[in-house]
């Protein structure tokens, strides 16, 4: 079947599937509202199935279907961010040429907008359609957007992008375009825990990240994901988390309790017996969500997220700013609000630099430890 035609319009059966399968959001009363928006009132004695059946045979235009899809899946999930560092400065002119080349290559399929940003930065915005075959046919086409930022920092270029495969491919293509023009390869550096091999070292990356964030004081750990050497390989998947083995869930809960109590009692986490036990059983943290209070003014509480796409290997570092609890009259507001773009950029940059520093330190410590062990072994042999 032509993919083009497959997602262009909906027949009555598509609409029926869409309505009937979205039980959670497309409730009976939402279906009644859809009818009412057309000026149609249905009998209160008609049930959800009757309503879905009736609505699906009405003529629908593009906007009607879009409205149903919107009601079924309001907004996109808050996307996580990731970054790579390129070991060279990329001038705006060079990026512009690379972006133009990319735009020409994907013309008709993707919509590419690029422009210079503040402080020698550069922004590429790509709008594209993503197809997800596992969903109801009408929801398969999902319009996505990737905002990719290039920031020049200390003689390097930091590229900040959504933590999606597509965004990574776009960045790889842009980098390739620059490399082709330069006839030279550009080294790339990201946050990867592949060099940290023990559960203890892996967990330490997170505990140190949340406790050493400059100008922030850790307030609370909200949630944790853990993995163990026993768990299966594979990419992290939000949905799969629910099916995690019981033992992992239990591990996550215990870990959270330990991390939480460490903060409250001021104990050193790594010294606690519970932590040692869990680590000995092979558990380590793979994602964390926490709140920290700003030490400056205003003392807002920010909720952060950090984790790895491939939990087991510790690759594909992704992170997000969930929002802020604003300081208000000596306390904090109860509801979380979005942070604005400038604030978000500042916080993301802080996370990036801290994560980088923590990883550098841990790798150095791991190396030292290895050398010590090896030295010790040598010693015994002698």
């Amino acid at each position: 079947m032509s993919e083009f035609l497959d997602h262009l319009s909906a027949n009555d059966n598509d609409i029926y599937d869409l309505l009937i399968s979205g039980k959670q959001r497309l409730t009976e009363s939402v279906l009644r509202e859809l009818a009412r928006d057309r000026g149609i009132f249905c009998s209160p004695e008609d049930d959800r199935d009757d309503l879905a059946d009736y609505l699906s045979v009405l003529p629908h235009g593009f906007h009607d279907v879009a409205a149903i899809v919107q009601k079924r899946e309001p907004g996109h999930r808050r996307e996580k961010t990731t970054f790579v560092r390129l070991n060279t400065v990329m001038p705006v002119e060079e990026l512009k040429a690379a972006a133009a080349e990319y735009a020409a290559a994907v013309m008709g399929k993707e919509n590419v907008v690029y422009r210079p940003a503040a402080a020698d930065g550069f922004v590429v915005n790509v709008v594209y359609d993503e197809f997800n075959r596992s969903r109801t046919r009408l929801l398969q086409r999902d319009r996505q957007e990737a905002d990719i930022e290039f920031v020049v920092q200390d003689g390097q270029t930091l590229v900040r992008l959504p933590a999606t495969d597509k965004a990574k491919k776009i960045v790889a293509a842009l980098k390739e375009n620059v490399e082709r023009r330069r006839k030279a390869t550009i080294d790339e550096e990201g946050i990867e825990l592949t060099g940290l091999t023990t559960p203890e070292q892996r967990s330490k990356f997170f505990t140190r990240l949340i406790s050493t964030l400059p100008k922030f004081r850790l307030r609370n750990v909200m949630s944790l994901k853990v993995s163990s050497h026993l768990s299966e390989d594979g990419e992290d998947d939000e949905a799969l988390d629910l099916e995690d083995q019981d033992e992992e869930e239990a591990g996550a809960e215990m870990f959270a309790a330990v991390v939480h109590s460490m903060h409250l009692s001021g104990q050193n986490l790594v010294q606690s017996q519970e932590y040692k036990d869990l680590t000995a059983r092979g558990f380590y943290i793979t994602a964390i969500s926490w709140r920290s209070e700003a030490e400056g003014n205003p003392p807002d509480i920010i909720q952060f997220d950090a984790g790895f796409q491939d939990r087991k290997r510790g690759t594909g570092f992704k992170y997000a700013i969930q929002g802020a609890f604003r300081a208000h009259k000596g306390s904090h507001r109860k509801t979380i609000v979005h942070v604005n773009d400038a604030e978000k950029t500042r916080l993301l940059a802080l996370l990036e630099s801290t994560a980088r520093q923590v990883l550098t330190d841990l790798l150095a410590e791991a190396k030292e430890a290895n050398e010590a062990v090896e030295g010790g072994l040598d010693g015994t042999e002698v």
Partner: protein
Amino acid sequence: MAETANTAEQAEIMASELFGEFFWNKLGPVNHDWPCEDQERHKVKEHPCDAVYYYEEPYAVRQTYVHCDLKSYAKGTIGPAPVKAAIESLAKQVACAEKSETWRKLHTHENVTFSVSGLLFVYNHDGEYEADFQKNLVHIAPESLQLPRASRLFVLGPKEIFWLDNIRDEIQRMRGKKNPEVPGHEHCFYFHPQLVRRANLQVRKAKAATLETLTSPIIILEHHDPKGGAQRGVAVFYSRLGDTTDEFMYLIDTLRKYELLDDRTSVVIKTLGASAISSPTFQKAQLQYIEGLVGANVSTDLGDYVNAIRYEPMSHIKTTYSNIDLGTWG
């Protein structure tokens, strides 16, 4: 209480004019009261009736009888309360109509399976329609209406009546041309597609635009050659703004699925008050659709049919469709 005879007569003229073009037929007396069948629950002795129209259903072998409440008001004089009261009362009327021997004798054919729908018809008689009439419906909980199972109640507000009346006007204009673009009534019918989950059982018989069609964004008039030729034409009345290629590609693809894009069919799409960029947007959608099928610069039959679709925003806009006053609220 029944509306005054004079008002009823005027209402009848107005409704006849509009619904006649959509092939609805009137049956029985207009503007009369009839006994309530459920006086305890409805708390009235009689129900009013302004007019009853009927048409054949395409997707079922039955007739739909449309029990109408015709209202008129001047701009700025209507609020949510009277609209709510009218709808609640109309729901009761529909419930009683199905049960009432009197109503059935006056307004239905014998030996015919039928269902009753309610229609609240609201326009403002000073000619300036209010676009946000629909907001009056937001506060009405559909669950609270005393409508029997599978019965429906429709509301055509000033904006919808304005749109439908312009379709009527446009069809009559097309028919009245020196070289008529649309033939006489006997060669015209409103198009009801064959669906995946429903069959159009009465293609010839069910020629009227149903209430479901009239309240939808796409109304299609199909007409055949009066001389008996194989050629046919379709006029697609599309009520949206037409400012995105997505919506036009959707519309074009829908016409393909309806099997209206072929050698013997000429297609014209008509809009009213569309976006200033709707014409170039439509052209862009045609190109994108053809390119999407097989790529650019490849000629195909389907591509030719898509290319042949004409897009004509209605330029002759009828702003006041009647200066007569219908029954007022009360």
